[in-house]
């Protein structure tokens, strides 16, 4: 799965979770860049990502992910 393919699917996930089709994310996107990205939506986002890529993000990383780039790294490691 290429990084591009991941982003294609990941953008859809973000657009659904935040219910805003204009959203596109990149390696440097952080929670500061998306107004509604708070603790609540972070959980929803993780759940949605786990479903989309059918794998579990380890607890520790859920807390420490600094930007979307790291999220993509994790997906590419273990996601499908």
């Amino acid at each position: 799965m290429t990084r591009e393919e991941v982003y294609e699917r990941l953008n859809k996930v973000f657009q659904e979770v935040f219910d805003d089709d204009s959203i596109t994310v990149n390696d440097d996107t952080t929670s500061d860049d998306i107004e509604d990205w708070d603790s609540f939506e972070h959980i929803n986002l993780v759940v949605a990502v786990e479903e989309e890529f059918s794998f579990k993000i380890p607890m520790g990383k859920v807390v420490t992910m600094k930007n979307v780039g790291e999220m993509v790294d994790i997906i590419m490691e273990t996601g499908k």
Partner: protein
Amino acid sequence: MEKNLLVIGASSDMAMGTMRRIHTGYGHIIAHYRRMNSTLGSLKEELGSKLVLLQADLADEGETAGLISGIRGTGLPISHVLHFPAPPCTNQRFPKLPYAAFSGELDISLGSAVRILQAVLPQMAKARNGRVVFMLSFVLRDMPPKYCAQYVVSKYALLGLMRALAAEYADKGITVNGISPAWVMTKYLDTQPEILIEQNAQESPIGRNLVVDDLVPTVSWLLSDGAACVTGQNIYVTGGR
């Protein structure tokens, strides 16, 4: 005097686990359930006629009325009541919660408690003996968690009912108390994302979420004769959260 236990919401893991541990102390257990399941089935097999099962959907006023006549129909004087019913809790921002999420939850948990206790308390008062225990929640403590206002409100409403009944029946030999656990590993948590469940376990001083057996001794104590002077209390079982 024979003790007969009425359990409302008996098909929950918590109710079933509790009944399995404490049934020996009672002549009969009248257990309301919504949906039969294998655990409840095998408990019925085990206890036979001692366990009287009554089905009803508490969201339906008519079925609740039917349940009450069913309880009366058994002809068994109720001395102890355990109240468990609560719809699964889903997380949602306050503005996105339909009011039905509040009223629906209240009708089931508060409504069932009010209607059924109104039916059994007078005769418990005549007998000058009774115990009522509500399953409440740690959300009653201090600042509640975010994003489940409907759940918090319904638990507070039950807390209010518990206190009001404790005051009204204190001079009639009836105690009314509550038990407020932190997250307990049951079907009830199925609606919660796994990471939240994991997070809760890690943040707990005991390093895990609770299991039903962590609560049973507190429930049995509140139901016991020895707790006759304990009423209006809400006991937190949280492992130190």
